[in-house]
């Protein structure tokens, strides 16, 4: 049963120090507003999970919120590296960051297993790579029907999943469309969930290809207009490509980064 509450209250209710937090959204619908609220509330020791960590995880890592990162690709899309992520792994600044590296499909299937109430997911990939030696969470498994050796990864059941969507109705049913990632899988796998939306509407008009998350699968919905900036919400906002370019210079230097976060995140309140 979803309840519609202000963003600061939702994050306060749902995210606790030491939690595992999955923030999904691929290229588009990335939940920046919620990430900034986590930073403002000063959470520590988080295990961050995300198939494709981009600027929002660079910010969370650089602000010292994360202890661990589960991921398959970490970069500034179309621009280059995430400098705060690299600084944390290479130089332990501002704190050491433990990483668990997977393939894209590994994380996607681990969410599906989590959402299905199954203990693990099965993949053909990983075999022959060095990844199984890096983590106990990638292990061989033998198919009981064919005898083929495959790879198992444990289900991901995050403490909290956070996604951004275009719309919700007042009961908390959510509708999202455009380039979809694994938002549905992450929300259904999570113990608690927060969906930020561009707007709350009286009725959700059906749309071909849209993903619907029913209110019974969601804990809180918060209205956060422009909440996916600098990524975008198809039908509402466009991607701020200039910001992704600018972030390279902002994040390259620790002091410049901290000054930017002070001015643009810490000194601001959540939209409502």
């Amino acid at each position, binding site marked *: 049963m979803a309840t519609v509450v202000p963003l600061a209250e939702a994050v306060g209710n749902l995210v606790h120090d030491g939690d595992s937090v999955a923030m999904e959204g691929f*290229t588009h619908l990335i939940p920046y507003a919620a990430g900034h609220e986590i930073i403002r509330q000063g959470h520590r020791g988080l295990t961050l999970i995300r198939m494709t960590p981009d600027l929002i995880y660079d910010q969370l890592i650089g602000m010292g919120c994360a202890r661990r990162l589960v991921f398959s690709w970490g970069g500034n899309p179309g621009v280059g590296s995430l400098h705060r992520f690299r600084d944390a792994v290479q130089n332990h600044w501002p704190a050491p960051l433990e990483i668990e590296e997977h393939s894209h499909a590994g994380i996607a299937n681990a969410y599906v297993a989590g959402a299905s109430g199954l203990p693990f997911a099965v*993949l053909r*990939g990983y075999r022959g790579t060095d990844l199984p030696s890096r983590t106990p969470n990638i292990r061989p498994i033998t198919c009981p029907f064919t005898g083929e050796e495959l790879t198992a990864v444990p289900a991901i059941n995050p403490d909290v999943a956070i996604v951004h969507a275009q719309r919700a109705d007042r009961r908390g049913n959510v509708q999202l469309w455009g380039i979809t990632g694994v938002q549905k899988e992450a929300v259904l796998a999570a113990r608690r969930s927060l969906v930020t939306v561009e707007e709350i509407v009286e009725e959700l008009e059906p749309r071909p290809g849209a993903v619907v998350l029913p209110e019974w699968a969601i804990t809180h919905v918060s209205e956060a207009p422009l909440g996916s900036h600098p990524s975008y919400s198809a039908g509402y906002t466009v991607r701020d490509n200039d910001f992704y370019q600018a972030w390279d210079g902002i994040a390259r230097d620790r002091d410049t980064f901290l000054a930017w976060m002070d001015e643009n995140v810490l000194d601001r309140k959540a939209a409502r």
Partner: protein
Amino acid sequence: MSTTGADRGATRAGTARTGAGDSDAGPAGATRAEICVVACAEAWRGDGEILAAAMGTCSILGARLARLTFEPGLLTTDGGALLTAEPVPIGAPAGPAEGWMPFRDHLWLVQNGRRHVMMGASQIDRYGNTNISAIGAWERPASQLLGVRGAPGNTICNPTSYWIPRHSTRVFVPEVDTASGVGTDRAARLGPRASRFHDLRRVVTDLGVFDFRAPDGSMRLVSLHPGVDAGEVAAATGFAIHGLAEPAEPAGPAEPGTGGEVPRTRMPTGEELRLIREVLDPGGLRDREVRA
């Protein structure tokens, strides 16, 4: 990850010219980047109706060029989640869509295998093991790279090629620091059942084209780009490439890897140059990826 020019083994020999005697040669003046685009396109020849998943400018241009010319059945994207009805200029909006390929569906396609991917690599070794994960000790790397992304699944499930814009000893290493993509030696050790979909096709670089069809599954010269000599490639590679030795004697028609005349990458045709220059990449992004 781009490499710097400082570790290059040899000074570049200048832009490629149409080689005398190249029967398939197009107009003179094709740049090295344009030769690379056509060499990338050739990687998808014969693939038919499958998804051409391309990363990197010349690779993306190559996939779209192949579809516009000799491989019309290829599925190409707008660089995002749309399958385009026609190959579009690089960076342009998708235009009419032929279909949707959201991330989740793309991952199913990887499992299913109707896909030939051309990826980049920060390191590649003689057996085609690749690294896009970390340089140095994995526990605390000297350089944390982007992460393995789709490489473990791609290489074990799909035909895989590589596009490496700067051939250098920094990339072509004796042994990768972390294997994120599976090479022929590791695939062989997994046995025939696990490796039955493993299919490393070719490596295209700014200097030449290579495959893994040496008798021991190691890297073999397919062709050098016009204007490139074997010594230049050897100096830019941290291991011996099969068939790269200086030509012993100019005997007979050249078979890759058998010595004799060094095989040359074919020049773009006039129509291919027109499509590259006027249709697919009028802004000249290709020349920013591959230096003349």
